[in-house]
């Protein structure tokens, strides 16, 4: 049944992603973005990465998207008034994307392991929350600290950049 789920979710994700790119109004784009993120979370589940899926929902569909919408409202961006479409640019862009996709497909095909099915998982293993958690706090301690610094820096930065007047 995962197979069907996979196809449904991926189509949903890709479709909404395309919508993000194509829709003219930022608000709609944002909404589609949420959708595609949720679908992505679903895909994580199909890969038995429950923890990541949840984080995805929380962080992206939650925090990030709220932020986006908030900003959009704040700046109350109108729909992108149709400026003269720069044909050369769009054509170039599409060419690049196409080329990239083409290349990617070939690479995936060439990768031997890509044809293999996924190995079975150990059913009576502890949940992956445990796994990720232990790994994170035991082995990945150093990067975690750095992430902390990074968050601190970005907080300070955001404050400095968006405060109306600095004291």
């Amino acid at each position, binding site marked *: 049944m995962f197979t069907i789920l996979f196809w449904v979710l991926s189509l949903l994700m890709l479709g909404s992603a395309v919508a993000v790119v194509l829709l003219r109004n930022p608000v709609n784009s944002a909404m589609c973005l949420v959708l595609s993120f949720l679908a992505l979370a679903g895909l994580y589940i199909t890969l038995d990465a429950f923890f990541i899926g949840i984080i995805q929902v929380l962080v992206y569909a939650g925090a990030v998207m709220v932020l986006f919408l908030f900003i959009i409202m704040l700046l109350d961006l109108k729909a992108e008034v149709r400026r003269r479409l720069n044909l050369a640019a769009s054509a170039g*862009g599409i060419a*690049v994307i196409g080329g*990239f996709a083409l*290349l990617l497909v070939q690479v995936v095909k060439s990768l031997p392991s890509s044809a293999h099915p996924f190995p079975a998982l150990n059913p009576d293993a502890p949940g992956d929350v445990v796994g990720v958690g232990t790994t994170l706090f035991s082995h990945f301690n150093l990067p975690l600290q750095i992430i902390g610094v990074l968050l601190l820096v970005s907080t300070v930065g955001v404050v400095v950049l968006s405060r109306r007047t600095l004291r």
Partner: protein
Amino acid sequence: MAPSLHPWIILFAPLVASAVILFLLPRRGVAAGIVAIGAAAIACGLSWRLFLAGGSPPVAALSWLEVPGQFSVPITLILDPLARVMLLVVTTISTIVFIYSAGYMRGDEGIPRYYAALSLFLFSMLGIVLSGNFIMMYVFWELVGVSSYILIGHYFRKDAAADAAKQAFLVNRVGDFGFMLGILMFWLATGSIAFSGIEQNLASITLHPGYLTAAALLVFCGTLGKSAQMPLHVWLPNSMEGPTPVSSLLHAATMVAAGVYMLARIFPVLAASPEAVREVIMWIGAITCFAAGLMATQQDDIKRILAYSTISQLGYMVVAIAVAPASDVAVFHLFTHAFFKCLLFLCAGAVIISLHHEQDIWKMGGLLSRMPLTALCLVAGTLALVGMPGFSGYYSKDLIVAYAHEGNTAVFWITVGAALLTSFYMFRLFFVAFMGRPRSEAAEHARQAPTIMTLPLLILAIPSIAAGYPAVAHHFFNIPHHEMSHIVHYALLSALGAGFLLAAALYLRGPTKDPVRIPLFANRLYIDNFYAWLVTCVQGGLAIIGSWFDRWIIDGLIVTGVARTVWATGYILRLLQLGNLQAYAFFFGAGVLAVLYFLIFR
């Protein structure tokens, strides 16, 4: 004072004088004169002493330029009879002319410069005489050229003088080009630059006759320049722009004879070299002596007439080198010629001074009565020059003609013709300038020149007459006794007479202007014009083309072109920085694709 030092003193006294004048007495005309004359006198005295002492005292050789084991140019002095005779001629005549100059140059602001240059000349001339190897001779050869340049350009404010000086130097340089090349060829073949060394190793070149011929003729080019042989004779008449004493000393008596002297030095080499060499030398001499005579017949400037006669006499000497069995024949004529030609010029100088620098014979006339002494000396000189029996010229010239008669009939007749021309133009000069009525104000009031100038004339008159007598000559030369056929005598005497009669017929009646006009001769066979064309058109043209190419092709097109291209490329490249974010993103993506394809599919 050790006799071995004498040659050095002879050589360097004039140089010292020159330096002293240049650095210590730049403003003191009289003092300069005294110093210069003193030095010349010392040299003269010592050379006489050297000559009378006889034998050749050993002379140390100083090393001058040396690359150990490879190449060395020592300073070696030769004192063989040839050199010693030459020393006498040079120093004696120089001393006389130095003294004469004191009178001639009176009142000139450039006297120190004049005497400095004159002393420098004497030094260099003596150097040529004494030098024992080619390079050393070349050194003094050049120095002679320089001093002549300075002296011809003494009146440098006159454009004519300035140009003449430049031309004289450059023409000589052209000759020296060949000279040096010849030296190089001899050195390469024989491994020596010393005359003696070359003569010893001659065997090593006689293997390559062609090479030897080329070398010998190239060295002969030096003579062409210095001794004003065709086709490099053009500078000598122009050099008459210099003061008359200079003309008489450098451009009549000594310097121009250096070429002949050099040929005499390498006479053994010439003798050993193929027939062709002597052929060429002979013909050039013959042509020169005849053509110069032709040109002389139509000149109006008293000094130019004498100049052309000098050229023609030098021609005789060159012929002599080619035809005679010994170099002394040529040097003999050089010897006599030095005296009487110097005399003639000094007479001309006296005339010019007393006519306030009037040189055109058609503005003279009747000078015989006004300055008889000068006239007398001039007659003596003339007779010597034309080869009047009993005068020195007769002996030396007849000898040459005689050898020519044995050597080559055509050349013989040419030389005889030249003799005819000689007597013609000399008597023309005499008749026009000294007989008849004065043709100008200046000539009316011409007076005898001061003693300091007349005295040298008288002194010189003596050797001009006597130097040729066998009794005298054999002290100086060992001329191979030679029974000359009568035809030579008759030919020469009739030529002399014919020339005289012709001149008398045309000019004795004292015409106010020249009854005959032959533009071809008057314009020196148009040779000067040809050179002018060569310089202005050919050389100038090449120069201008060259500089155009350098300016616009090498520099403009290539160098600047490259720079411009780089600059333009930069200008275009920076336009890629559109400033548009999306463009950047696009370039970025394209770059990514390019890199990936390069990595995976290459």
